[in-house]
């Protein structure tokens, strides 16, 4: 492709004065993105389509996977209260984690922005650093704090906050705390990005015009960072609803969420069609939530994004 453009260019150079902009070959962008398109068609679209087809197959313990096309797996999941419970738990955990991340992450981003230079960089490093550390290592830390050393319970009892130890391992509370820890940096990042657009002088202007600190927060700061909180919430919710390693380690086999359920169907029960069905439902829920909420946020806060 490079060669053909080259001859084309030198051809025009010989006869006419050099063009202000080199003429573009209309196929260039397609050729440039062709390797990626081929890769994604074969390695993303085909496997996802195959997963959808797999979810239509049926499974029996003796016959294995049967090549029939039916919606039986979907009907099973809709009819069975066990699956309702798992999906409900998944979304409940995701909702509470999102709320906690917004509650703690947004103020933290605001505090970070008001810090002075050397401290700000250091604290930002501590907040964002965990994103680069493996989720498995971070969750292991919570398993150690909750279970083996029992440090959290010792601390809470030492402070006189609780009389008897709280059960964290294999409970929703434990999963929620660990997942909040894993995902809160995303919220800080998102709010931080929206705070970059807020000029501190606007706050000072409001103060000098006689507004109290609470009014400034409510009327000046909050309207600016709400889009950041909302887009952070979309990311956190989507990641929490499809989280796997943290619920698998803290929740164990007893407390299943959608992702660990699909994992068990695939690698333990070997009911691949049912596992694929859970995966397809999770994917649809995820895409609907991300795309739908993004649309809503962008429409509602159009002026902020422009």
């Amino acid at each position, binding site marked *: 492709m*490079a060669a053909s453009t080259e001859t084309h260019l030198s051809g025009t150079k010989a006869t006419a004065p050099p063009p202000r902009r080199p003429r573009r070959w209309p196929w260039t962008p397609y050729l440039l993105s062709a390797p990626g398109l081929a890769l994604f068609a074969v390695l993303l679209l085909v496997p996802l389509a195959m997963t959808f087809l797999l979810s239509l197959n049926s499974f029996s313990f003796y016959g294995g996977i049967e090549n029939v096309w039916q919606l039986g797996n979907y009907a099973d999941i809709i009819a069975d209260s066990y699956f309702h419970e798992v999906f409900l738990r998944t979304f409940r955990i995701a909702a509470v984690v999102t709320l906690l991340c917004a509650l703690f992450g947004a103020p933290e981003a605001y505090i970070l922005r008001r810090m002075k230079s050397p401290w700000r960089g250091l604290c930002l490093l501590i907040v964002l650093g965990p994103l680069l550390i493996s989720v498995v290592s971070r969750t*292991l830390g919570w*398993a150690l704090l909750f279970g083996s050393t029992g440090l959290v319970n010792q601390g809470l009892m030492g402070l006189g906050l609780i009389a008897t130890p709280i059960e964290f391992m294999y409970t929703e509370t434990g999963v929620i705390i660990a997942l909040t820890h894993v995902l809160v940096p995303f919220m800080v*990042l998102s709010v*931080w990005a929206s705070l970059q657009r807020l000029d501190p002088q606007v706050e000072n202007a409001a103060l000098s015009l006689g507004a109290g600190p609470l009014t400034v927060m409510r009327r000046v700061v909050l309207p600016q960072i709400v889009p950041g909180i909302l887009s952070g919430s979309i990311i956190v919710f989507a990641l929490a609803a499809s989280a796997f390693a943290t619920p698998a380690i803290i929740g164990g086999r007893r407390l299943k969420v959608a992702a660990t359920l699909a994992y068990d169907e695939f690698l333990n029960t070997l009911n691949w069609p049912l596992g694929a069905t859970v995966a397809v439902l999770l994917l649809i829920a995820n895409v609907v939530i991300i795309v739908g909420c993004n649309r809503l946020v962008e429409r509602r806060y159009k002026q902020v994004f422009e």
Partner: protein
Amino acid sequence: MNRNGPIALIFHVLFLSFLLAPILIVCAVAFTSQGYLSLPTEGLSLRWFRAIGDNPEFIRAFKDSLLLGAVSSTLAILVAVPAALAIARHQFFGREAIQALFLSPLMVPHIVLGIAFLRFFTMIGLGGTFAGLVLSHVIIILPFALRLILAASTGMDRAVENAAASLGASSWTCFRRVTLPLILPGVASGWVLAFINSFDEVTMTVFIASPETTTLPVRLFLYIQDNIDPLVAAVSAVLIFLTVAAMLVLDRVYGLERLLVGKGRD
């Protein structure tokens, strides 16, 4: 007025403690001298770090993870650079759709990709192979690389390129001597972010890794599912030390905020 009050500072300290607590406890437990999980109250010991040497499967998984990260992020860059240039500087039919396709792995839960790749690779005979791991990792890390390269190529000055072309540079020379150096910071940070995402990936990889070819996070995850002992704490601690070291270098050279937020203040 733009200062934090005492309540804000207390909140800030509690928040940072919450973030650091699980990471610090892993490092503390790794130094225990006991044969079971405990804080090193009886004195520090390196016995569990030495024990890693007796478990070559962790060391092999670590090497596999490094190789996988390096190969897949390099491949992702090779695919992402031309695609980013096409999207950033050409108006063509289907441009938005192509960009959405390249970014779509961000929206697909990794558990779904794991299931999809397990089925697909088993069918085409790549199940449990290193090649399968590389291909699947290229898909999930490409969006991260693409976004940073896209930002770099959208922001660059086209006049320099036009000058080179009008002075008779061929389009390949123009790319190699003008365009590439200009977008190189974006390409380099894209590679780093892609590598980190590949190295830390566990949810998808757990489906397609085999006992012979596996990554360190997957090995750790499967080990933790069976039992938690000071050995995994030691392996995790080593991983944490390496990550922190890499992070400090990265922050000095490029700026962690710029890497993760996409745009920096300086």
